[in-house]
């Protein structure tokens, strides 16, 4: 029916119609995509979650040799006030001994304070070593009980299945004793 009805108009009518269909279809696609975005974005972190994306820690009370665990973005962050012996030990390790070579000074802002995300880079367990009574592994740092990864006093992986050193989050010192993580 369509062909006979449009026979007189020829190709011109066809093109105009095709253009109309294309334009409508394209607009429909654009519309569908614009509706999809808010629905997808709704699953991204919300404003109240983002507002808690930074954590402030007062380390003035933290004695040498002590460590604290704080929560940052729902994850444990280890802050250790290292003794000079620990710092020396960390700095003295030759890079060739390391699984994931990284010098100690690249992992700290002030050598006394080591700040790391306390999640084993193997499969996400929380390593032991924060409390005085905890096993600290063979390198005096941290020990992951799940699969036996040993970390040194700079939080670098020395033995075990973990592929990387413990991650260092972005942080800064607002003043001498206040660390802002994130």
């Amino acid at each position, binding site marked *: 029916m369509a062909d006979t009805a449009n026979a007189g108009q020829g190709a011109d009518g066809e093109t105009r119609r095709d253009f109309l269909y294309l334009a409508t279809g394209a607009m429909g696609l654009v519309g569908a995509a614009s509706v999809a975005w808010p629905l997808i974005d709704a699953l991204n972190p919300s404003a109240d979650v983002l*507002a808690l994306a930074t954590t*402030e820690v007062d380390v003035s009370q933290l004695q040498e040799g002590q460590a604290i665990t704080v929560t940052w973005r729902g994850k444990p962050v280890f802050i250790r006030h290292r003794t000079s012996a620990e710092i020396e030990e960390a700095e003295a390790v030759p890079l060739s001994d390391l699984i994931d070579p990284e010098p100690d000074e690249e992992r700290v802002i002030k050598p006394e304070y080591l700040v790391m995300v306390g999640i084993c880079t193997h499969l996400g367990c929380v390593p032991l070593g924060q409390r005085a009574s905890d096993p600290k592994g063979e390198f005096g740092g941290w020990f992951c009980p799940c699969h036996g990864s040993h970390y040194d006093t700079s939080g670098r992986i020395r033995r075990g299945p973990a592929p990387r050193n413990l991650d260092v989050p972005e942080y800064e010192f607002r003043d001498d004793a206040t660390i802002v993580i994130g």
Partner: protein
Amino acid sequence: MKKLAIIAAAAAFLGLAQAPVVQAAEEVEIPSHDWSFSGMFGTFDRAKQQRGLQVYREVCAACHGLRLVAFRNLADLGYNEDEIRSLAADYQVEDGPDENGDMFMRDGVASDRFPAPFPNENAARMANNGALPPDLSLITKARQQGPDYLYHLLLGYQDPPAGVEMMDGMYYNAYFPGHQIAMAPPLMEGAISYADGTPATTQQMAEDVTYFLTWAAEPNLEARKQMGMKVILFLLIFTGLLYAVKRKVWADLH
């Protein structure tokens, strides 16, 4: 014709269904005020909102909470990060427990919400002659004709008409349902001195605080109306195209 009649009937039904709800709440007629945020292109007024925040903090906050609003939200009113940080630090917020297991007070930070003026409902009633000052976070959405109601309520204190017996500790208000309100007239001429030097008349304060609280109740109002413009414009063009397509497709048939 019949289609129109049905559409009209449906529309009338919606209209009818709404109308009595308005009347039923209270018989008081609330005059409408001219707000910059009403209408399709409505936007807030930053200066008025900032003054309104000052009215809230210096007058309302003594009794009324604003628990759903966080200090970080004040960025919407045009405050920068430092201003928000120092404003938040004016407030003491309970945190804890610390390592001894005790709760402690600390300065507020941007992610905190406005602290409540009373620890709980009973304390609030105790301090207010048995009345509970409502939280103001949603007040303009929780009342019929919210912004108009709030504005006129704040200015609606009068001497009771002859023959009206006032209960103890109550004030006569022309716009409050039942006319007997436990809240003393909150706004006094010149009670606060605005940071921007605007004379603090009662009308000015009532209007400013309504701007602020309307934002507090519906912080996405501007974004909503702006997005609405785009969406409806898009849909009008798209539906126009669909109409043309429908005519073309059906042309075969007639």
